[in-house]
């Protein structure tokens, strides 16, 4: 649901000269179909074996009691992510400035709670100076 919601702000994000990327442990053979199905106009990148998520320190191992449950839902992470250890990233959304510094971070271990995309758009506007311009005009 997160990528679809971000798609809703993408034209405004691009108008600012900013961009969105979604990183997922899903293997490329799955991202291609998903990207198409969701009609995304930003990239969905395969973070193979969670190398980048690890660097952002977002990775945890699913407890044993959830592994079998995930499998029963058809969510076999060994097959979908090549993750035999059943590791996952906790959901997170970052805004990074042109210098590569993190300027906003929304990290929540509860995957049912996410920041509004409009808030991410506002953070990007601040970084591109567009918010100041809007305020001056108002």
């Amino acid at each position, binding site marked *: *649901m997160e990528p*679809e*919601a971000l798609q809703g702000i993408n034209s405004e*994000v691009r108008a*600012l*000269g*900013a*961009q*969105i*990327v*979604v*990183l*997922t442990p*899903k293997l*490329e053979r799955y*991202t291609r179909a998903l990207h198409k199905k969701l009609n995304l106009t930003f*990239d*969905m*990148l395969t*973070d*193979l074996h969670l190398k*980048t*998520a690890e*660097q*952002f*320190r*977002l990775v*945890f191992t*699913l407890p044993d*009691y*959830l592994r079998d*449950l995930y499998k029963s839902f058809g969510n076999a992470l060994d097959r*979908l992510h090549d993750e035999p250890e059943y590791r*996952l990233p*906790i*959901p*997170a*959304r*970052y*805004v*990074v*400035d*042109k*210098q*590569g*510094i*993190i*300027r906003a*971070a929304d*990290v929540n*271990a*509860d*995957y*049912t*709670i*996410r920041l*509004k995309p409009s808030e991410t758009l506002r*953070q*990007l506007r601040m970084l*591109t100076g567009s918010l100041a311009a809007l305020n001056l005009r108002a």
Partner: protein
Amino acid sequence: MASLQSRLEEFKRAFESGAPPYNAEHEAIKKMHRATPELKSSGIEQQALKIGDCAPRFTLFNQDHVQVSSSDLLRQGPLAISFFRGHW
């Protein structure tokens, strides 16, 4: 389109109702309810990179098997990075 948070809540409600199409069992829902507080108390949110930290660089394949690097993207402007596991 309904807001992201209301869509998340609606899916959670539908799933946890135990009704079709998900037919989630009570035991399954109990396990999921156990996992989130455990993960929160593990301190993982506090360990994650924060405002002011340098964002690690990455070069990864996109959906069309084209390599995309964060450095190239940042040359053009600021970047929003979302870590997505699936569905939610």
